[in-house]
C-alpha cells in the first residue's frame, strides 16, 4: 500500500511535465489531462485513506523510501515519504479541493489561450504541495515548500502582460524567500544539534536539546510559517497575490498553500512543546495577524482583497491555535480544513461573480446580484454562514473550539487571547456580512467596463457551478462531520491532544461566540443593509484609510526595504566602479605616467648616453674602492 504514496506526488507531477513540455498540440486536451491526473491523485488518496481507517490508531502511519537524495559525509537526505493521519488530512484536502478547482478552472479559463500552461502550473502546485505534506524530513519539506512557492509565483504572475501581476508574483516570491531563510536556518540548527533533520529522530530527540536551541529552532520555523502563511510581519504579499486568476486565489491563497505554515508548526509540535517561549511568540503572531487581517478585510472594496484579508485573519486563528500547544493543534488543523472548504467556496463564488460582471472586482459596483446568479448566491451564502461561525455550520465548530482553547490557555494570556479571538469573530462577522450585502443585496450599482459595454450578469457554466456546490456542501457539513466522527481521536496519535478547560466553561464560550457574531452581523447590516452603499468609497476614518492601505504595511516596506535597498545597491555599484576598480586603474595610470617621465631621459644623443656610461663607470669604481676599503 505504501508504494502508492509516491504516485500521489507522481501523478500531478507527470501532468505538469506533460503539459509544460507537450507544446501546442496539447492545447485542446491539456485541461482534461491536468484535471484527470489531479483526480487520480485524489483517488489514490481516498484509497490510502480507506486503508488507513482499516488499521489501528498506532500502525496507521505509512512510510516509503525512494532513494537517497543527498548522500554526503554525515549528511543524509532521503527522498522518503511519511503518510500519517496529519499528512492524510492534508492529502485529501489538497487533492480534493485541488481537483474541484481544476474542474472549475476548465470553465473559468475557457477563453485564455494559455489554458494548457495554466493547468500545467496547477498540477505542478498540487504535486509540490503533496510533496510538502508527505515529506518525512525537513529538507524534503523544504523542497516542497519552495516548489509551492514557485507554483504560486507562476500562477500569480500568470497574466504576465499585466505589470501589476508580474510585480505581485515577484513580491510574493521574495517575501516567501525571507521566510525560507527561517526554514533553512532551522534545518541548519537541527543538523548541527541532532546530526539529522528527519522528522522522527529530530522530534524524538528534541527533548534532550537545550532550551535555547529549541527556542531558536521554533522561532526560525515560525519565521518560515509567517512567510508562507502571510502572517505579520510577512503578510504583505497576500493581498497583491489576488492579481492571479481567481481559481489560484481559491486553491493556493485560501485553501492549501497558505496553510502550510500551520502544517509546519503542528508537524514540529514536539519542538514547540519543549520551547514555551517560542509558543508564546507563535500565539502573539497569530493574534496580531488575526486582528490585522480582519481590520484590513473590513476596509477593502475589492472583493478578492477583502477575502484575502479574511484568509489572513482565519490563518491567524490557526496559528494561534497551533501556538496553544496540545490543546490547540487538533483544532488548528480542523479549522484549517473547514476553512479550506468555505474559503475556497467563497473565492470560487467571487470568481463566478467576476465572471458575470466582466471581471469587475469592486464591490461598490455590484449589488443586487442574488437574483441574477442564484446558485452562486446560495453557495456563497453558505460559505458566508460557515465562516462567520453560524451555529451548525463547519466554521462554527472549528472556530468555537479554537476560542475555547484560547481561553483554556489559562492565566492572563488565556484571557487576552480569548478576548482577541472573540473580537476577531465579531469583526469577521462584520466584514463578511459587508461583503455579502454589498455584492448580492441592495440596488444595482453596475457600471460599464473599460470598453463601455455594460455588464449583464449570468450564472456561470456547469463546470464552475458544480465545484462551488460541492464545496458549499463541505462547508456546511464539514464541521459537524469532524465533530462527531472524532477528528480529535483521528489526529491525536500524531499531534497529541489534551482537553483544555476554559475558566468560564465551554458553553459560556460558545454563547459569547454566537453573541459577538450576531453583534458583528447587526453592525454590518446597519451600515450597509439599511443605507444605500455609495458607489464611490467615502473618505472614511483614519483607521479605514489605513486599513485600505493594508495598515500602511506596504508603505513601511517600501520606505525601508525598497527605497533603502535601491539606494544601497546604487551606492554599491558606484563603489564597485570607482573605488574597487578605481584603485586598480589608478595604479595603472600612475605607472604609465612614471614611465612616460623616464622616457624623457632617452633623448637620442650618443653623447648624453656616454655621460651616463661614464658616470656609471665612476660609480663602479667607487663601489669597488668601497668594497676594498671595507
Amino acid at each position, binding site marked *: 500500500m505504501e508504494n502508492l504514496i509516491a504516485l500521489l506526488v507522481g501523478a500531478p507531477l507527470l501532468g505538469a511535465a506533460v503539459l509544460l513540455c507537450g507544446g501546442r498540440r496539447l492545447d485542446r486536451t491539456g485541461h482534461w489531462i491536468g484535471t484527470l491526473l489531479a483526480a487520480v491523485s485524489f483517488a489514490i488518496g481516498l484509497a490510502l485513506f480507506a486503508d488507513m481507517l482499516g488499521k489501528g490508531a498506532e500502525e496507521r502511519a505509512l512510510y516509503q523510501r525512494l532513494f537517497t537524495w543527498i548522500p*554526503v559525509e554525515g549528511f543524509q537526505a532521503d527522498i522518503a515519504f511519511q503518510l500519517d493521519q496529519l499528512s492524510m488530512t492534508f492529502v485529501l484536502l489538497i487533492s480534493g479541493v485541488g481537483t474541484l478547482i481544476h474542474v472549475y478552472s476548465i470553465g473559468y479559463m475557457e477563453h485564455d489561450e494559455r489554458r494548457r500552461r495554466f493547468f500545467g502550473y496547477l498540477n505542478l502546485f498540487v504535486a509540490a504541495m503533496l510533496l510538502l505534506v508527505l515529506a518525512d524530513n525537513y529538507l524534503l519539506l523544504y523542497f516542497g515548500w*519552495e516548489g509551492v512557492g514557485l507554483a504560486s509565483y507562476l500562477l500569480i504572475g500568470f497574466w504576465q502582460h499585466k505589470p501589476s501581476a508580474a510585480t505581485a508574483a515577484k513580491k510574493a516570491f521574495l517575501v516567501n524567500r525571507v521566510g525560507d531563510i527561517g526554514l533553512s536556518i532551522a534545518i*541548519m540548527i537541527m543538523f548541527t544539534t541532532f546530526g539529522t533533520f528527519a522528522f522522527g529522530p529530530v522530534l524524538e530527540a528534541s527533548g534532550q*536539546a537545550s532550551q535555547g536551541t529549541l527556542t531558536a529552532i521554533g522561532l526560525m520555523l515560525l519565521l518560515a510559517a509567517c512567510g508562507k502563511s502571510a502572517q505579520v510581519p510577512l503578510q504583505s504579499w497576500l493581498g497583491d497575490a489576488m492579481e492571479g486568476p481567481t481559481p489560484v486565489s481559491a486553491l493556493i491563497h485560501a485553501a492549501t498553500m497558505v496553510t502550510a505554515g500551520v502544517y509546519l508548526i503542528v508537524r514540529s509540535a514536539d519542538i514547540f512543546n519543549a520551547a514555551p517561549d517560542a509558543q508564546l511568540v507563535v500565539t502573539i503572531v497569530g493574534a496580531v495577524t488575526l486582528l490585522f487581517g480582519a481590520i484590513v478585510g473590513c476596509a477593502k472594496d475589492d472583493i478578492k482583497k477583502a477575502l484575502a484579508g479574511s484568509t489572513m485573519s482565519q490563518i491567524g486563528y490557526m496559528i494561534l491555535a497551533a501556538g496553544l500547544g496540545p490543546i490547540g493543534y487538533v483544532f488548528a488543523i480542523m479549522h484549517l480544513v473547514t476553512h479550506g472548504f468555505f474559503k475556497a467556496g467563497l473565492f470560487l463564488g467571487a470568481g463566478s461573480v467576476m465572471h458575470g460582471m466582466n471581471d469587475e472586482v469592486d464591490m461598490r459596483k455590484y449589488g443586487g446580484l442574488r437574483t441574477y446568479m442564484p446558485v452562486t448566491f446560495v453557495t456563497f451564502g453558505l460559505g458566508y454562514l460557515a465562516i462567520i461561525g453560524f451555529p451548525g455550520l463547519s466554521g462554527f465548530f472549528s472556530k468555537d473550539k479554537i476560542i475555547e482553547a484560547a481561553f483554556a490557555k489559562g492565566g492572563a494570556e488565556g484571557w487576552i487571547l480569548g478576548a482577541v479571538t472573540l473580537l476577531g469573530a465579531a469583526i469577521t462577522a462584520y466584514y463578511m456580512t459587508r461583503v455579502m450585502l454589498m455584492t448580492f443585496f441592495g440596488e444595482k450599482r453596475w457600471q460599464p467596463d473599460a470598453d463601455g459595454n455594460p455588464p449583464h450578469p449570468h450564472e456561470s457554466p456547469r463546470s464552475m457551478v458544480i465545484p462551488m456546490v460541492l464545496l458549499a456542501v463541505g462547508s456546511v457539513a464539514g464541521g459537524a462531520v469532524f465533530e462527531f466522527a472524532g477528528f480529535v481521536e483521528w489526529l491525536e496519535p500524531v499531534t497529541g491532544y489534551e482537553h483544555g478547560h476554559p475558566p468560564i466553561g465551554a458553553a459560556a464560550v460558545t454563547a459569547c461566540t454566537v453573541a459577538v457574531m450576531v453583534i458583528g452581523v447587526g453592525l454590518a447590516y446597519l451600515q450597509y443593509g439599511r443605507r444605500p452603499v455609495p458607489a464611490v468609497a467615502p473618505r472614511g476614518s483614519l483607521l479605514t484609510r489605513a486599513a485600505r492601505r493594508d495598515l500602511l504595511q506596504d508603505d513601511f516596506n517600501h520606505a525601508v526595504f525598497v527605497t533603502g535597498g535601491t539606494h544601497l545597491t546604487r551606492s554599491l555599484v558606484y563603489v564597485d566602479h570607482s573605488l574597487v576598480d578605481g584603485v586598480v586603474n589608478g595604479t595603472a595610470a600612475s605607472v604609465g605616467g612614471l614611465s612616460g617621465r623616464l622616457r624623457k631621459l632617452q633623448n637620442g644623443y650618443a653623447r648624453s648616453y656616454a655621460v651616463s656610461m661614464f658616470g656609471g663607470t665612476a660609480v663602479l669604481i667607487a663601489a669597488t674602492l668601497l668594497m676594498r676599503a671595507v
Partner: protein
Amino acid sequence: MFGTSTAFPLLTVTAAVPAVGAILTAAVPAARRTAAKWLALLVSLATLVLAGIVFARFEPGGERYQLTESYAWIKDFGVRYELGVDGIGVALIALTALLVPFVILAGWHDADPLETSSKRWRPTQGFFALILMVEAMVILSFEATDVFLFYILFEAMLIPMYFLIGGFGDRAHAGSDENAAAQRSYAAVKFLLYNLVGGLIMLAAVIGLYVVAGNFSLTEIAGARANGSLEIATSTERWLFLGFFFAFAVKAPLWPLHTWLPNAMGEATAPVAVLITAVVDKVGTFAMLRFCLGLFPEASKWATPAIVVLALISIVYGALVAVGQRDIKRLVAYASISHFGFIILGIFAMTSQGQSGATLYMVNHGISTAALMLVAGFLISRRGSRLIADYGGVQKVAPVLAGTFLIGGLATLSLPGIAPFVSEFLVLVGTYARYPVAGVIATTGIVLAALYTLVLYQRTMTGPVKEEVRKLPDLRPRELAVVVPLIAVLIFLGVFPKPLTDVVNPAVRHTMSDVQQKDPQPEVEAAK
C-alpha cells in the same frame, strides 16, 4: 607511489585530443568555415566521451589519485610531467568536457566574418581552435599533480582566453564599433593583467616551495608534510600559502579582486563568458582545494577567518551589485561573483559538507550559469542589445526562450529540485556547523539571489510587449539543442546527485584528513 604509470595514458589523451583538434581546426582553409565548426564540435564530443571513460574508470573506493602518469620532464629541477585525478578533478573534468560542446554549439555563428572583412580572414577557425585549446589546458590543469606543471597551465590558459575576449567581442554593443573595440581590448587587457599579477605572485611562491621542499610533486610534498619528514617554518608556510591563494583568489574572483570579471563577461560573447566563469574560473577554486589545503594545511587554518569574511563579502556584495546592474551579462557576472563566494566559503568552512558542497557547487554553478548565460546570449543576439531596459514582454512573443531563461534563473537562485540547491544548501549547512554567524549571513544570499533573478526576469520577459521585441523569433532547433540538455542535467543532478557525490566524497575525506579537521559533532545524538 608515482613510479608506475598506467598502461594507457588516458588522462594525457583526454587533454591531447582537444589540443590536436585545436591545431587541426586552425588549419582549416578559410573557405571551409562550416567544416571547421563541425570539426571542433566533433572533437569536443570525442573529449566528452573520453571524459566519460575517465569518470567510469575512476573507482571512488580506490587510491586517492588514480589513472596516474609520471614522466621526468626537467630533471635538474625535479619537474615531472605528473598526472592523476581525484574525485574533485574527475567531476570538474566531466564538467569541462560537458560544457564545451554546448559552448561551441552556442557560438556557432558568433565568429562568422562580417561581410566587410576580407576573404582571407579566418576568424571562425581561430575562434573554435582557441576554445578547444582552452579546454585542453583546463582539463590538463585539473589532472596535473605537479605544482610546476600546473603553474605552467594556469598561466598558459590566459593566452587563448585573452584572444577570445579581445578578439571576438559581443556584437550587440551599445556604443559605436570603435567604442566596442576599445572596451573589448580594455576588458581583455584587464583580464590578462589581473591574472598575470596573480600568476606572478604564485610563481614566486612556487619557487619558494621548491626551495623548501626540493621538488614540485604535490603528492610527495603533501606526503612528506603528513608524515612529518618535511617541516616548513610557520611564517614560510603562511607566505607560500598567501602566494598561492592570491593567484587563485584572482582567478576565482574573490572580493576585492573581482572587477575584471564583469568587464570580461560583459564584453565577450556569451559562449566565451560561459567559458570564463564556468570553466576557467573553476581552476582557481579547484586549486584552492587541491593546492592551498593540500600543501599548506596549517596556514589554511590560520587564514580561514579572513577568507571566510572575504567570501561573505563576496556573497552579499556581489548579489547587491548584481541587483543594481543595467546590463544583462554584467548582472550574471556579479551573480557569479556571489556564487564564487559560496564556493570559497564552503572550501574554507573545513567541514565535509562544506567541501562536498563546494565541489558540487563548482559543477552545478558551471552548468546553471551556462544555461542562463547562453539563453541570455540568444536573447541578446536577437535584439542586439545588452541593456535590460531594452526588453519587455518577451515571454509573450518567445515563450520557450522565456521559459528556459526562467529555469536558468531559478537554478541561479538555487531552487530545490535544481542542482545548485543541493550544493548551496550543503555549503550553508557545512558553514553553519563551524561558523554559525557566517552561515546565517550567507543565508541572506538566497533572498538577494531571488531578488536579482526575478527582477531580471520581470523586466525582460514580462509586462507589455515592447515594440522592438515584437518580432523576436523563439528558440531555434540549434539553440534548443544547447539549452534542453543543460536543463535536463540540472534537474537530474538536482534530484539525484548521487553519481557526483559518490565520486566527490572520498576526495573530500582525503582533504579533510590533509587539514586534520573533524566535522563538529552534533550536541544531541539523535536516534538515526
